[in-house]
């Protein structure tokens, strides 16, 4: 079944087009990697899907019935988002962030606690739960943000640069959780510069250039396209 439909999406600021006629579809349980140089439009596309960046044309649908333009509240409930830069509130501790996420995705308290304990141990954040973001290192803040998005069972996970700022153990652990989520039917749309790292996870790719889809297809084809582009 189709999970995400992006149909002819444009994002414009004045006369400059950040995204130009982007269309693609994601099936349930699939993993799509968005690749491209800096400024290609990867993060803009993520934000447009999230509804943070307003699109100027096109349609974005979840599960074929939740349209971003007409059912925004239900639409949002189906997506969890990890940003490249941790987006945490100075007023909330790590634990309070987890609770805010839990409540926003309407999770049961017992289940939330179970998952928090598990992920906190896995990401080695014990003893940091009552700390405010300012007293955590950048890597730890990234871990807090990652755990927040891992807590709910949102059908679609958007991850902007998944391994940015994480140490090598955290990267391994995160990869394992992602695989578990995928096995349980979660779809993931991620942007990355480290395609080698996500090659074992992703099954499709889209290459963006100056806001347009340059290539797309199964991840296995990526190397051939990359070599061909490099030679040109």
């Amino acid at each position, binding site marked *: 079944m189709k999970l995400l439909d992006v149909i002819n999406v444009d994002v414009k600021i*004045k006369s400059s087009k950040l995204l130009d006629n982007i269309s693609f579809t994601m099936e349930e349980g699939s993993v799509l990697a968005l690749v491209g140089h800096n400024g290609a439009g990867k993060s803009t596309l993520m934000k447009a899907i*999230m509804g*943070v960046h*307003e699109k100027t044309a096109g349609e974005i649908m979840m599960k074929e019935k939740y349209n*971003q*333009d*007409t*059912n*925004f*509240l239900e639409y*949002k*409930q189906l*997506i969890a*988002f990890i*940003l490249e830069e941790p*987006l*945490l*509130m*100075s*007023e*909330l*501790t790590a*634990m*309070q*962030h987890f*609770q*805010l*996420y*839990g*409540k*926003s*995705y*309407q999770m049961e*308290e017992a289940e*939330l606690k179970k998952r928090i304990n598990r992920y906190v141990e896995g990401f080695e954040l014990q003893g940091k*739960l*009552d*700390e*405010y973001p*300012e007293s955590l290192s950048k890597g730890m803040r990234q871990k807090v943000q990652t755990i927040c998005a891992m807590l709910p069972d949102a059908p679609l996970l958007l991850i902007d640069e998944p391994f940015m700022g994480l140490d090598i153990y955290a990267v391994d652990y995160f990869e394992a959780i992602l695989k578990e989520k995928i096995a349980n039917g979660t779809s993931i749309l991620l942007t990355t510069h480290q395609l080698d790292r996500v090659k074992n996870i992703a099954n499709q790719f889209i290459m963006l250039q100056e806001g347009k889809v340059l290539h797309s297809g199964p991840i296995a084809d990526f190397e051939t396209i990359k070599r061909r582009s490099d030679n040109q």
Partner: protein
Amino acid sequence: MRHPSTWQAYRFIRKNRFIKKRNIMKMLVGLSIDKTTAIYSLIVGGYVFAAIFIFNDYLQIFKDEFVFIERTAEERFWLILTIVPLRYIFQSFRHPGILFTSSFYQLGMLPHALNKIGFLCIAEKWLKQLLIYSVISAVVILLTPLNTVLVLTYFGLFWCIELFMTIPQWKLFQANFVIKLAILLTVMLLNVLGTITNQSQLVSIIVFSIVIISNILLFKKMYSGINWGRVTEVNDYLVWSMPMVARATKVKFKRQRRYNLFQNRSSRKRPFRYTEASIHKRLWIQHIRENIELIVKVVGTLFIALVMLNFVHHFVVLIGIAISIHVYTTFMASLFVDRFQSGIVQVLPWDVGGYQKTVKQWVFYGAIPLLIPTIIFAIIHFQWWSPIFILLVIVTAVFNYTIKMGNAAAILDKKLGALKVKDVLSFLMLGFIVLCEYDPSFALISMGILLVVIYRSRRKHKL
């Protein structure tokens, strides 16, 4: 060894800041104003100016007021001299008074002395203020019959206070909240005592002497014990926060909030009770704190207007109450929508109904300053009808609030459509408040509405 020129580096940063701001404003103007609108606006503006100041003999109309202003200004000179410094003490709670931004602080990391950069910031501020006061005093002298010497004395005095309060405000900004409050209350108390005992001149001499002594004492320690993080954070916000641009681009420049006094309390670090009320309470407090200046301005203006209108006419007070309800409920609804436009909440799913429930108490607290003058007016003006009139005001406010929050929810769900009957009704209800001037029995409409609401909610429960 050659030293780099701090002045040139300072000028370079200021020039580029100006260029960047100018470009942003140009873009804003390009986005929001076309040439035809601009020309028509200029014509209308010119006509209004001509109507007021050229064709109308306003000097004759406001003759008594000008005489009153001149007499008061002469009589209260010493009192005003001690009241003006209060402004700077009050400002020191939020603003350091010297526009030392993070760019200037970074300049201090290069071979430039912080005190030299600080001096340039202060000099710029003083010159700017001098220019502003000169322009204002020139306009006042040209357009009003007020005594030129008096106007110049006053604006000269304001500028001197600006000068002498720069260092005290800068150092006070660094001080503990209690110290600031103690100083503020002491100066206020001195003013009250001076007025009661008719010794304003003595009080102003004491206050001014303290200000000058503190300048001498603090000058050498100006840059020691400074929390630069806080100073640059506030100043960056002041420099780059451009409300018109934020409104047009829907991108808000938010202050980077860091620790505060209350945040270090262990009770605030404890996990929430896992309820909406408990989690949302923190989010609302944070949102209110972020917008506190705007909230105080709006509620404060409405409060002052409701109080002052009592001195004009009853009918105008009723119009004021109706407008206050409209403005306050619209403002609260837009503040509600704003909660979802930035930060972490923007990327989370929104249980709008839940947020609407938890914001109610804060909306009520904000309405208290408006309710007090309304109730006092109702008791004095309507006497036996006052309970019914107050009920009408409350019902109208709740009705307007409910409609506007419903629209806010629709905006968040991207479902807001055309004007509905409910919107028109909520507007019409405001009219009933004004009609009470002709016949207080119009207030009985509130009872009817209340009965309809109770009947409908009961029917809903049964279904």
